[in-house]
């Protein structure tokens, strides 16, 4: 095992880097829907479904990681349109609650469908197939997909929807179609992140995919900033590293972690990314050499 992970030269940090990349995709799964005004927390359910699907397939049917991942993604993409029903009717917090309920319902399902999920004890002995290069490639591919989606005509439509759905409609933006698009993207990102996680931990259980996971993924996306995919990646990076840095502080680490999130929310509600771009604009104005 050490040989597999050690060859990239990151040694002891390999595990941390993998978790950062996995969290980046999960946080992006939430960002991509939130940034278009669809307050869906379903990402965590997609991650759980992706994890169990790929784990079962590779463990019991001996399929490769690639096949397990594809089936996991396909299942989530089939489920995603279900969320159009609440998304077309509910807004903001109400939609968030409805999708959160779905996450919790799936958790209950995982607890009880023991022959598929191992029940409360969890699923053991999942083949360890996740490698750093594979996760890295997946994270880059997701970033590229998100970038061309969010910086194009589609991206303008999604941002318009978030702030003013009626305005979007007036200029010919089909809300249903774009909501389906972001839900599908969210499903793909969640499933990929979930499947890689299962094949890295070798063990998954229902309590990995409850309310705690929702708050973690959500705070990463909001901490970094919801406007653009880079916010989710930045937030996931920082909030994955931070607890590791604070590990020596024992009980204080949660407190400092929480306080930092609250501080960013209070002083920079748009997320860290907005703060950084404002700082960059400020520096460019003050230092003419950088302005070119």
């Amino acid at each position, binding site marked *: 095992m050490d040989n597999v992970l050690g060859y990239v030269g990151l040694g002891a940090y390999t595990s941390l880097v993998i978790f950062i990349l996995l969290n980046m995709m999960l946080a992006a799964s939430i960002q991509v829907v939130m940034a278009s005004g669809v307050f869906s927390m379903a990402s965590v359910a997609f991650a759980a479904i992706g994890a169990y699907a790929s784990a079962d397939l590779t463990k019991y049917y001996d399929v490769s990681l690639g096949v397990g991942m594809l089936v996991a993604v396909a299942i989530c993409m089939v489920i995603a349109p279900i969320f159009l029903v609440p998304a077309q009717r509910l807004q903001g917090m109400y939609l968030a609650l409805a999708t959160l309920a779905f996450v919790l319902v799936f958790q209950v399902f995982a607890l009880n469908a023991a022959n598929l999920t191992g029940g409360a004890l969890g699923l053991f002995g999942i083949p360890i197939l996740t490698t750093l290069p594979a996760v890295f490639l997946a994270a880059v591919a997701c970033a590229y997909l998100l970038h061309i989606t969010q910086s194009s*005509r589609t991206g303008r439509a999604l*941002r318009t929807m978030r702030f003013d759905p009626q*305005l979007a409609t007036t200029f*010919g933006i089909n809300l249903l179609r774009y909501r389906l698009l972001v839900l599908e993207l969210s499903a793909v990102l969640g499933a990929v992140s979930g499947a890689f996680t299962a094949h890295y931990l070798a063990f998954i259980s229902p309590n990995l995919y409850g309310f705690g996971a929702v708050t973690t993924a959500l705070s990463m996306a909001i901490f970094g900033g919801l406007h653009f995919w880079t916010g989710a990646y930045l937030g996931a990076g920082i909030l994955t590293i931070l607890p590791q840095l604070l590990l020596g502080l024992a009980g204080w680490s949660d407190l400092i972690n929480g306080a930092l999130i609250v501080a960013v929310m209070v002083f920079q509600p748009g997320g860290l990314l907005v703060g950084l771009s404002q700082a960059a604009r400020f520096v460019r104005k003050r230092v003419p050499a950088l302005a070119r």
Partner: protein
Amino acid sequence: MTPLLEARGISVRFGGVVAVADFSFVVEGPGVYGIAGPNGSGKTTALNVITRVQPLQTGSLCFGGIDYTSWPAHRVAALGVSRTFQNVRLVPTLTVLENVMVGLHSTSAAAGIWGSWAQLPSARREERRSRERAMELLRELEILETASQLPSQLSYGHQRRVEIARAIAGDPKLLLLDEPTAGMGRSDAELVAQLVRDLGHRRSMAIVIVEHNVPVLASLCDHLVIMLAGRNLTEGSPAAVLSDERVIEAYLGTSASRNPAKT
């Protein structure tokens, strides 16, 4: 000839409140049309019905002979209908240029989502064309220097100009302006008035202006409709409408004191 817009017998109720009752409005073709009426007479609701954002209880809507009464709102833009809003509605996280480009959404649909994902040359070309068109409009409205700013950095008058640029970006056949000069300073208001006259003359575009300020409207439009309590009160050339007894009554109160003999 089929009229450009034909709205007949429109009624809208909000609970027990009747906002629009049996309202009819016909735009024959290019020109400047005005809808005036006191506050609360249903003018904005009428515009919302025409753009299908507001569901209607009764009535029919035709555009160039096409019945679109039951169409979803997002398809109306592709007919060639565009509008501005009474209060500025720009997307705060998009730059001024990008906000104007939102107005080109339905006319730049050729490459679509898949095209832009695959980074097809046609999608890139379209994006560049949209950008150039938006820049051209910003130049026309004398706010080119604000292109890369966020709407919040602009004055109110400039924000309204961005809204107008967005509305005319897709070269609509029917442009609906909801109180275009409300809250504007004189220079901004004059620019808008001049623009409306230019658009009416140069392009083959029908413009519908909603205003409660009748004198402003009368100076701009060729055909004026007065609404009162959600109904058509009267319509015709501005001069004829403004001398109508009922219009004066609607604006200045009952004529009982001026004309005690009335029964």
